[in-house]
């Protein structure tokens, strides 16, 4: 095991990565779950998703955020939830970048739906940092502080 790997697989670092991801995704899900119609509008504003899929995405995505956030914190299906969180982050990064490149003047829809902050490079950087946490949780998350009986 080389030095970098030793640091990255430190159980407290892995736990910290999991707690950060869990907290951010649970927080992000709450207002979207409360207001699916508002979230659907926020998705529409990105002009990226076909209209027929917008509502299904608005119904499912917040629950995926919530449940993955809970699982990654309590330590059940850590790798599976890390993978899903990574996939969601990848989608958010692509959507944000594309919106910035197209100069869309829309609300981010990241944490709050109404009167929230606009899209900015800062959001993108946050997402990329979260992606690093995903990498750590995915590679080393199935061990310490988690229930080991996952799916084999």
């Amino acid at each position: 095991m080389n030095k970098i790997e030793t640091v990255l697989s430190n159980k407290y670092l892995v736990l910290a990565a999991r707690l950060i991801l869990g907290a951010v995704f649970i927080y992000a899900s709450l207002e979207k779950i409360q207001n699916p119609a508002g979230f659907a509008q926020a998705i529409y504003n990105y002009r990226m998703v076909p209209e027929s899929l917008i509502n299904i995405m608005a119904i499912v995505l917040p629950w995926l955020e919530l449940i993955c956030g809970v699982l990654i914190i309590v330590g059940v299906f850590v790798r599976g939830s890390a993978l899903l969180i990574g996939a969601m982050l990848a989608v958010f990064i692509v959507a944000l970048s594309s919106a910035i490149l197209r100069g869309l003047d829309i609300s981010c829809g990241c944490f709050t739906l109404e009167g929230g902050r606009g899209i900015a490079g800062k959001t993108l950087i946050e997402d990329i940092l979260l992606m690093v946490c995903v990498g750590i949780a995915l590679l080393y998350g199935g061990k310490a502080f988690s229930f080991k009986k996952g799916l084999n």
Partner: protein
Amino acid sequence: MMSRAVKEAIVITIVVVVIAFIVNYTRDEGISLIADGDAFRIQTNAEFMVAEDARGHFDAGTAMFLDAREVDLFEAGHIEGAMNLPSTSGEVNSLAYLVPANPDLICYSAAATERQAGVVADKLLEIGFKKVYVLHGGLEAWEEEGLPTAKGN
């Protein structure tokens, strides 16, 4: 190891989809599975006004600002001097007499729900007001210009 992560991810996804659809089906706030595309678009006969131009009217006192959002959002923060005229209240017609006829009327909501401003603007046009505008980019655009807002009612 990765195949285990993928398997877990599939299980989580299936469970989440089931939960999400059941909850959506049973609650009042639930939405239809297929979106009505028209519901997302801002459909208004009013013209758009950018925040910079709206600022000119604000400084000169030649416009009245109308906030089309719900009361709680209005009270949490709105354009200084604005009047609350929620698009959903069904009271636009009954409240409209309060709106002075002379100045320009600039309707706004949040950027993500700009449609609400369009609804109010159209009702005002229907009633017979001529100079009705929708603030482009909503309250966020106003705040980005660093223009004054107020709280409360």
